[in-house]
């Protein structure tokens, strides 16, 4: 993946860069409007993470410029403004997704992966990870051609895991991804354990390797052994 991170906040930019940097990924960064414009004009990216409030200009203008020039880059807006108008404006201008600060890096990764998947594998809706094959259109999961029946949330969780393979995902991030804002109604995240147990059991029974590992009681990791 070839990614451009346009974010003025150094701490956040570095974290994102580190999280996305792995074998096969190229991450570039821009911290202000001018350098972002310069990079956009020179190179092409699979996905651009775009902060709206930037020193030297508005991120929305960058988006407009991109679309004027028919750049095929995927754009994900990261903004502190959780207003519906901003969201609608961003999406209407051609952004692929909109994520509100603060967010979990795993959530960002999942969204970026989804955007790139849509952009790159035009027409192909098959997501393959070793023996697991997921038909994204039919929302069907097969392990070595055996259909695994997953619930809506289990399915979402599996996709989330694969997008963040090799990373430890905190229980908070999982809970927020699956249950959204309403998750604060739970006193603790212990129920996630039974949820993970179910999906593990279903996959293993279908002959899949057990890719999901618990990580120090903090979260889970989906990785090849």
């Amino acid at each position: 993946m070839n990614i451009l991170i346009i974010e003025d906040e150094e701490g956040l930019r570095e974290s994102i860069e580190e999280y996305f940097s792995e074998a096969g990924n190229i991450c570039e960064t821009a911290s202000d409007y001018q350098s972002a414009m310069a990079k956009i004009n020179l190179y092409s990216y699979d996905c651009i993470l775009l902060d709206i409030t930037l020193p030297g200009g508005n991120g929305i203008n960058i988006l407009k410029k991109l679309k004027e020039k028919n750049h095929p880059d995927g754009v994900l807006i990261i903004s502190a403004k959780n207003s519906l108008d901003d969201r609608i404006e961003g999406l209407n201008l051609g952004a692929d997704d909109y994520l509100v600060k603060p967010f979990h890096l795993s959530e960002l990764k999942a969204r970026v992966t989804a955007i790139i998947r849509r952009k790159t594998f035009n027409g192909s809706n098959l997501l393959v990870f070793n023996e697991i094959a997921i038909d994204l259109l039919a929302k069907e999961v097969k392990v070595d051609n055996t259909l695994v029946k997953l619930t809506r949330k289990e399915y979402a969780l599996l996709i989330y895991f694969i997008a963040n393979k090799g990373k430890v995902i905190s229980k908070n991030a999982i809970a927020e991804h699956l249950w959204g804002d309403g998750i604060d109604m739970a006193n603790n995240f212990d129920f996630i354990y039974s949820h993970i147990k179910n999906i593990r059991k279903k996959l293993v029974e279908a002959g899949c390797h057990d890719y999901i590992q618990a990580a120090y009681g903090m979260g889970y990791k989906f990785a090849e052994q």
Partner: protein
Amino acid sequence: MKLLARYNRVNLVTTIVVMFITGIIYYQAISFILTSQKDKDLKVEEMEVFDYVKQNHTLPQTFQSDDQQITFSEAKPGSVKREFIDTRYLEKVDKDDDDEKPSQKLLPRYESGRGLISSVTVGGKYYKILIVESKVETEYLIRMIFFITIGVILLLLIILIITNRLILSRLWSPFYGLMNQLRTFNITDAQDIAKTETNIDEFRELNEAVAGMASKAKHDYKDLKTFTENASHELLTPIAVINSKLDTLIQTQNFSERQSKLLNDLYSAVSRLNRLNQSLLLLVKIENRLLHERQMINLRTIIEDMIVQFEEIFLDKRLTVTCNLADKEINASQYLVEILLSNLIGNATRHNHPDGKIFIALTGKSLMIKNTGESVPLPEEKIFTRFHKSLTSEGSGLGLTISRQICENFGFSLNYTFGAGYHTFTIDF
């Protein structure tokens, strides 16, 4: 009491009293003048009698005119004191005149009269003279005056009432207009106090003062809101940084159990901080009426979706959720309604005990969410205020404030009751 009514009352009482006193003075004056007129007539009559006696040395014939009677009676010499008296005048009925009124023939009529008692000595004999004149005309006159006075009072009353109705209420209309504006004044509205057209100085000054005050209040409130909004916005970035750093930190290897526990605590603290911050931003937004995209939404569908969404959480606490939902469409913002429902159902879950119960009933008129929990009722007046929360709550303390704000935004009411071990929140549409 209205100023107008008060003013009218004082006005009326004074007017009536003054009219009454004037009437009495008027009556007395007229009565005095007329009586002295009569007395003069009586004196003339007396003089005539004296002249007659002096010339003829005999008593004049007693005669009768329409309004005068003279009678002579013998008396002890010196026993008669000359004086004017109020007496009765006996109207002798003339037989010829009253042919057509036989019923009155035998009935002498008494009228009030004015009399003069005097004395005369004729031929060594001492006589008492009584001259009586009818006062009928005088009384008639006085009665006329009385009626005219009453008439004037009545006329004055009517005029006063009409004046009040028409002129005074029109005069006060800028005041009432201003009052109405004040009553509907909302610090969160964009609308200012309008200028009322009036050329009365007091009202114009009042209007200016009120408008000035209102705009200042609005300005201050706006400042406060802007501050809250900016502060929350500024907080978002550091929270985002902490969050991302934590996500990065857990990617490094080999944590001891103690470290994981610390990290977990950090995660939940950041998450609480974030929720609190989001709630503050949301409150500002609702108050600013910035979330206006209304549409027709079916509450039943939203509730059903939500129940499915939170299934695992209910299951974890072994809560029994019973729903009795009718179809109900409301015109509202989907985003806000979801927050509202998630807050209320979330509270019913969070403040429930394991193996507890939740009842959700939706009818055309209301939505009721009932749950078991602590067996003590919540302080109703406090729970909707900002940052009020129970000792055990890990929420932001803003959930119910937001819920009530959302309800008010759509013109619903949100109320709390407690009974038979159930905490009940009811939204009346």
